[in-house]
């Protein structure tokens, strides 16, 4: 899980071109608003990234909304998806 979180942070910074290093991202901070401050376009990039880099296609958006709470939320979502597939 910790490796996945590290990997996620690295990819987030690279793909969304965030102005911070992966280590500076708080694993439990909200992705939107005052947390990471991702905007409406970032979240679309994130969906594309999960599909391309992790093979996770979010079909049910209610699940997706639950996953997109924090980096940890995404990591748990990926882990759960991988386990069930």
């Amino acid at each position, binding site marked *: 899980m910790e490796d996945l979180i590290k990997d996620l942070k690295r990819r987030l910074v*690279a793909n969304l071109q965030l102005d911070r290093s992966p280590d500076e991202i708080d694993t439990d901070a909200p992705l939107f608003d005052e947390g990471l401050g991702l905007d409406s376009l970032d*979240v679309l990039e994130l*969906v594309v990234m999960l599909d391309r880099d992790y093979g996770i296609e979010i079909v049910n958006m209610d699940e997706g909304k639950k996953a997109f709470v924090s980096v940890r939320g995404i990591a748990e979502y990926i882990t759960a998806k991988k386990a069930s597939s």
Partner: protein
Amino acid sequence: MKLQGEDLGKPRDESPPASKTVLAKSHAWTGRSGGGYFGYWIFIMVLRVLGLWGAYLLLVPVSFYFVLFAPGYRKASMEYWRRQYQRSPLLCLIYAYRHFYSFGQVLVDRVGIAANPERFQVEEEGLSHILAAINEKKGLVLLGAHVGGWEVAMSFLAKRNVVVNVVMFEGEEAKVRQLLEKNVRLGQVQLLSVSGSPEDSLTAIAALKRGEVVAMHGDRTLGGRTVKVPFLGAPAAFPLWPYALAAAAKSPLIHTFAARKGMYRYGFKAWPVIHPRLERSEGKNEPLREYAESFVSHLEEFVKDFPFQWFNFYSFWKQE
């Protein structure tokens, strides 16, 4: 021309809350149309009694009034004409008058179409692209603009068995809801109110994943990220969100515009499908630029063919 009083108000199908009477609805008419309730009421009355021609005639003084007393709209219109034709201010002013008149005609036609759709003839070009895309059930992003009569395109889709989500910015909602509700044929059309938040993106993806259509305008930035693309010779900001949305949902995207072509005549055009892709590791906005450029080239084609049907009455080249 048989726009009977009854025709204007009567629901034309069973969709219950959709119509009542146009007059009753007009209480909520608070859009940017100057003159408010009274002005709207006069137009409805003239439409009923004298028909479309009568309402057009009424547009003559109304358009003149706007040229004189609506400096914001006048300025925006004249800027458009300056960029479109590089003519003298006087000529641009005359064009502004015709511009308002043309906008009025489309607004009047809307009421006419809602009341009496059979009377209007709509020529289509490329509808097959849209139908093929819908049949694939991968969702469809329909990208239009504030030109001509976009709701004409919507009325095409309303007859098909597909849910259409019309995206609008919070605040525009009441106005557009009223406009759509007046058109009682739009059974499966619903509104998707967005505020530019990340949650909006997820809601829109969800609709596309259900195989629905998400329709929006590609000439409003909605406060999101944009790319500057030359339009009529000067850079203007266009949104990137529509293309990123299609890429994220793996849905096709189609450009579509509808134009008023004459008395009771509209033309509707849809371009071939594109499949936007969001590639990694390039400049942040750049991967999507080509899609915005392609949209702008089609938009330019439209405003060259129908110069008086550009309906963005604000300083378009200054928005961020």
